[in-house]
């Protein structure tokens, strides 16, 4: 089966010479929920920006469901890979929730009732349909994050990439978002250093450290491996025992 995400030897250096990725190999298959873990500065965000061709690898290849990420394929790649960025204020830039959710599908050429249906379905999926006509800046932070997820869902992506989705959320919003993510019928790559959240949502985890994949396996096993965790600056919250949750 063709993996949804297929990264082979992806290496990248920023123009200032800083080498952020040193050859990353990663495969994500359809229907999987995978957590991408790593300390700050491990190259997580750089890697995410490779998934939809915002950044192009210096070496190696990225393919999404068999389609290579190249300049010619960008629009289709960006439809297939939906990235939800960390700050919803960066993602919601239109005057109303409806317009924001419609932005992506409109770039794909959708108009009229089909567009309406997409927008409504995406908002419904995150429980925000009744807020369609509100300006985004009048919503709470948790609501804005949910709308940010909807803006990407409306493009019907094959993989949903969430960059630190639990940051700045209160426990209730955090749980609501987890319920939403679980309810979606889509492949998910969850980029985070919120380890309990990874354990709650993702059976499989990948540790990115110093620009390479340092571990790839069962989330509970990885979080339980103290030596591994320590060597990559990953720490569980005080009193948290990973096995107790699975």
């Amino acid at each position, binding site marked *: 089966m063709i993996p949804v995400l297929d990264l082979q030897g992806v290496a990248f250096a920023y123009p200032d010479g800083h080498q952020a990725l040193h050859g990353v190999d990663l495969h994500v298959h359809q229907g999987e929920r995978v957590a991408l873990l790593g300390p700050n500065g491990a190259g997580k965000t750089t890697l995410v920006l490779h998934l939809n061709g915002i950044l192009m690898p210096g070496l190696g290849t990225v393919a999404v469901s068999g389609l290579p990420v190249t300049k010619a394929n960008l629009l289709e790649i960006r439809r297939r890979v939906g990235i939800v960025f960390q700050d919803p204020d*960066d993602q919601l830039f239109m005057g109303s929730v409806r317009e924001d959710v419609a932005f992506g599908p409109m*770039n794909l050429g959708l108009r009229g009732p089909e567009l309406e249906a997409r927008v409504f379905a995406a908002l419904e999926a995150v429980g925000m349909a009744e807020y369609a006509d509100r300006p985004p800046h009048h919503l709470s932070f948790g609501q804005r994050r949910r709308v940010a997820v909807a803006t990407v869902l409306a493009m019907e992506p094959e993989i949903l990439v969430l960059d630190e989705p639990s940051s700045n959320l209160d426990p209730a919003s955090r749980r609501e978002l987890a319920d939403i993510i679980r309810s979606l019928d889509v492949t998910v790559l969850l980029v985070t250093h919120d380890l309990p959240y990874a354990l709650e949502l993702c059976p499989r985890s990948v540790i990115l450290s110093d620009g390479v994949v340092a571990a790839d396996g069962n989330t509970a096993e990885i979080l339980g491996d103290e030596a591994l965790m320590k060597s990559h600056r990953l720490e569980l919250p005080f009193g948290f025992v990973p096995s107790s949750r699975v």
Partner: protein
Amino acid sequence: MGAPHGHTLHFHGHSWLHRLPAHVKLVALVVFMLTVVATPREWYPVFAGYLALLLLLVATSRVPPTYLAKRMVVEVPFVVFALLLPFVATGPRTEVLGLSVSEHGLLGAWSLLAKGTLGVTASLLLAATTEPRALLTGLERLRVPTLLVQIMGFMVRYLDVVTDELRRMHVARESRGFSARNPRHWPVIAKSAGVLFIRSYERGERVHLAMLSRGYDGRMPR
């Protein structure tokens, strides 16, 4: 985030003036302003007529006059300038309250004050009865270039975000014992303004990234 919601100029209501389409109001405002500016300054009764018309509109809009009055502070620099005019202008002089003032300047001051106040009140009334988003749609209907309307749209969208950032920086400064009363502290304010500019610029870059990620190709979809 506990930012104060809504735009401070808009007064929520349901009067006929609130319901009137934004492009009609925009055209009416421009026509009104041009007429006021073109009216010779000696036609005093006509100005009284303009004022009566405005007051009638304010009354029917149910926007409290005090609400508008508070926001008229924006006119203060012009008022100061107008008050100075009679003293600095040249020409034949006359006596007002025992002070020798220029007749020319006095007339100039009257004209500036009357026309300015009418214009500001009318604009504030438009802002109070029209939501910023409706204004943008109105401008679009009036065939204002889309790029300009979009830039204004982004401004409306991020005004709150940036003001919020400004407020947080202010609180952080005060929390460390800073107060801006002494002019020697002004450089700190200038630096904060610089930081705010850089932060907003970087946000602009992140917003652009988020737009590209959803298939933006340089043109807004229509």
